[in-house]
């Protein structure tokens, strides 16, 4: 158990080392003669080699040893860096990653090991290398994914009902045998109580297995046990079905030991995989941990203080201690949020390698730069952002940046520039993803939107409105779908992901000069400052940063009930009542909360303003998911609930109602 734990840490760490190695190699590829980077590469490899040795990853030791030697020679100026060396290094990294997660090394990996070793060897001797092109290696990776054997556990349980449909389980199982190797753990073909448990080792996908089981729909269960053949190199003897009726089976009741052994093994494998892949770890600055320890010690002190004062019935001191605890809980809260913060370069470092490969694939030259990578965001936000951000970068490289020839013809630098720039403003983090490519053609978007029937051909749109059209579901601005971007996920999914974390996205573009996507994000989303208001016995929480001011509802001619406008210091402002229907209602006394969010400004009439409140957001699920004007709910001190409003969505909702 202990050793498994350390092994997991080792794997986590090594994955981290490999990422920084990749990032250094990308830098080295731009600057072959940079000795500092070479030293860095050497150091990281040395660490990986050392750690791998401790945990018995001999194959990793073998390749890193040889490659490390090369970099040692480079360091000593006996060899020079070439593109070939970088390529070999990258393929070694992929290989090491593969080795890390393979309990038993398969033949393919062994061949790869040999290939890499011989490549390194030939490089040392200055010979020509046998490097498979990038495209090819990408392709073979895909094929390998398809051909990979997986182990499935299939449980079939038929009841009397299905018997009427004249289904014989026997034939279903026979079909399963066509998919791969089957190991039957128990089977019963008696008329009233048919059932079977089968391990299937197959390269087929879930869907294909499901297809075979089509006729016994609702009566089966398919579980993925392992991403490999669990029976491989193993002595567990199970009879293999040979296609005729004389099938020998292991009956769970007759041979319980073997069955249990198998189940146990299956569970072990499952758990191992979970340990390796599913847990998400976070590396934390030691300072933050010290701070946490300090808070804990404070808490212990205050706790005994409180206990003591209560025993002596000293009310005054108890109240004092309670106040201290309140302050401490705020600090704990802050600390917990701090612990969750992760610097942005954690993801952008990973992009470096992907961008390098991508650029090679589309034959473009790209310089990728990250500014402000040290700025931190909540782990959850970073994780959610990973995919949409990569999508934007892919778009920039695939569609934004022109080919080197075209760029030169336009008088631009051959090398296209893609930048991610992070900056902080209050509780907001801004991410700017920009490229100096071709920009987005306004005419093209306009025509396409008309063609799709999204807008009329007479529509007059501001630049922002026009660019926002690209987030419309199914709106693709690319004429030819390339195999990199433009398939599957569109910009609308990017928008959705970003809205999920309460972010906003805008586009700026100039034709021929480039495009910039600006993401406005919250640093943390789990706790926000709100104002509590009450209306019709429902308590609402409104994010404080959306609120401009609170005033009384004005009387007389300042309120235009017909058009739903209020005169606020000379500006006509639309207003809504948050009643059950969100529509307009007759005037009544109350307070006015003026909302301002970006270009949106409106007022809300409520019965009562309660006060400020730090809300811990709890998500609403199920039926409420469609009600987009609710961001969630939060517990109030007395255990009751307040609804957290999304002001922008609230306005959209009330607008729709007014129109209807």
């Amino acid at each position, binding site marked *: 158990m202990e050793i498994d734990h350390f092994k997991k840490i080792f794997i986590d760490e090594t994955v981290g080392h490999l990422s920084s190695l990749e990032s250094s190699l990308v830098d080295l590829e731009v600057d072959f003669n940079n000795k500092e980077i070479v030293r860095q590469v050497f150091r990281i490899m040395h660490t990986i080699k050392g750690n791998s040795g401790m945990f018995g990853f001999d194959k990793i030791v073998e390749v890193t040893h040889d490659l490390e030697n090369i970099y040692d020679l480079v360091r000593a100026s006996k060899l020079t860096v070439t593109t070939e060396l970088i390529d070999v290094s990258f393929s070694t990294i992929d290989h090491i990653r593969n080795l890390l997660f393979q309990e038993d090394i398969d033949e393919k990996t062994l061949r790869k090991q040999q290939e890499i070793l011989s490549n390194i060897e030939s490089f040392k001797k200055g010979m020509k290398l046998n490097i498979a092109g990038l495209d090819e290696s990408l392709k073979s990776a895909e094929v390998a994914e398809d051909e990979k054997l997986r182990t499935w556990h299939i449980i079939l349980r038929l009841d009397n009902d299905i018997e009427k449909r004249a289904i014989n389980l026997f034939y279903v199982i026979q079909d399963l045998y066509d998919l791969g190797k089957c190991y039957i753990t128990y089977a019963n073909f008696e008329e009233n109580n048919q059932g079977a448990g089968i391990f299937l080792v197959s390269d087929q996908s879930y869907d294909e297995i499901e297809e075979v089981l089509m006729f016994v729909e609702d009566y089966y269960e398919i579980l993925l046990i392992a991403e490999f053949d669990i029976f491989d190199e193993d002595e567990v003897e199970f009879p293999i079905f040979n296609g005729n009726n004389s099938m020998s089976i292991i009956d769970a009741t007759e041979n319980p030991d073997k069955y249990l052994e198998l189940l146990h093994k299956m569970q072990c494998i499952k758990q191992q995989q979970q340990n390796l892949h599913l847990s998400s770890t976070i590396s934390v600055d030691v300072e933050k941990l010290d701070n946490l320890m300090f808070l804990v010690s404070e808490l212990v002190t205050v706790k005994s203080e409180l206990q003591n004062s209560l025993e002596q019935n000293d009310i005054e001191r108890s109240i004092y201690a309670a106040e201290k605890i309140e302050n401490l809980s705020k600090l704990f809260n802050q600390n917990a949020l701090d612990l969750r913060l992760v610097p942005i370069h954690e993801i952008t470092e990973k992009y470096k390698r992907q961008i390098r490969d991508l650029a090679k694939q589309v034959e473009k030259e790209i310089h990728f730069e990250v500014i402000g990578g040290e700025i931190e965001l909540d782990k959850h936000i970073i994780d959610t952002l990973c995919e949409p951000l990569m999508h934007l970068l892919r778009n920039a490289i695939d569609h934004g940046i022109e080919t080197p020839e075209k760029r030169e013809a336009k008088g631009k630098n051959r090398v296209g520039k893609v930048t991610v720039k992070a900056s902080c403003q209050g509780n907001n983090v801004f991410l700017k993803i920009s490229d100096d490519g071709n920009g987005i053609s306004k005419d093209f978007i306009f025509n396409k939107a008309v063609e799709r029937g999204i807008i009329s051909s007479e529509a007059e749109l501001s630049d922002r409105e026009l660019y926002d059209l690209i987030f419309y579901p199914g709106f693709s601005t690319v004429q030819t779908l390339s195999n990199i971007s433009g398939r599957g996920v569109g910009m609308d999914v990017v928008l959705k992901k970003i809205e999920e974390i309460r972010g906003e996205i805008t586009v700026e573009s100039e034709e021929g000069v480039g495009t910039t996507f600006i993401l406005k994000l919250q640093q943390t989303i789990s706790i926000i400052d709100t104002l509590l208001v009450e209306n019709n016995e429902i308590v609402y929480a409104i994010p404080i940063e959306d609120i401009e001011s609170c005033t009384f509802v004005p009387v007389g001619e300042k309120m235009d009930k017909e058009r739903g406008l209020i005169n606020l210091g000379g500006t006509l402002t639309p207003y809504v009542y948050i009643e059950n229907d969100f529509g307009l209602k007759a005037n009544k006394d109350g307070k006015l909360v003026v909302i301002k969010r970006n270009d949106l400004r409106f007022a809300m009439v409520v019965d009562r303003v309660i006060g400020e409140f730090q809300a811990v957001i709890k998500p609403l699920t199920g039926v409420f998911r469609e009600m987009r004007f609710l961001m969630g709910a939060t517990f109030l001190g007395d255990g*009751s609930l307040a609804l957290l409003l999304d002001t922008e969505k609230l306005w959209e909702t009330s607008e729709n109602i007014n129109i209807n």
Partner: protein
Amino acid sequence: MSKSTYLTFHVGEELFAVDVTYVLEVLEQQTISRVPKAPEDVLGIVNFRGDILPVYNSRKKFAIPDDEIMNKYIIVYELNDENSRYSVSATVDSVKDVIEFDDDEITDIPDMGVSYDVRFVRGVVKRDDKFIMIIDPEKVFFKPDMEIKQESELTNIQS
């Protein structure tokens, strides 16, 4: 024959039963917070062990005349859909008993002017001259998966 254990409860005059494996807890006297614009059969939300659950009005679900005062108890269900577990809750007038039924005691619904959605009912058990309706909570409180559907439709268009 196999037996299962059921929780029985009253909604209006009708007696219902649900397999106890679906039931997490029965709450009493819980404050339900109303939610504006919620669907008709949803009374609001409730705080259950730090999570927020929707509260359905069983009277609306089973087409029994609404009577707010009688919605006294809340049954918290834990249900499964294809890939996840989810919890919902629903009000009932009173919780009666925990009983065992043989599987073969459960019969199809007699065809006699049933006023509610028959898909919700798995079968009927007759006890002491009374019919007990066995509900299938996964069908009654089906989790809407609109969002997922929309996304997959979209992928189809683009690819």
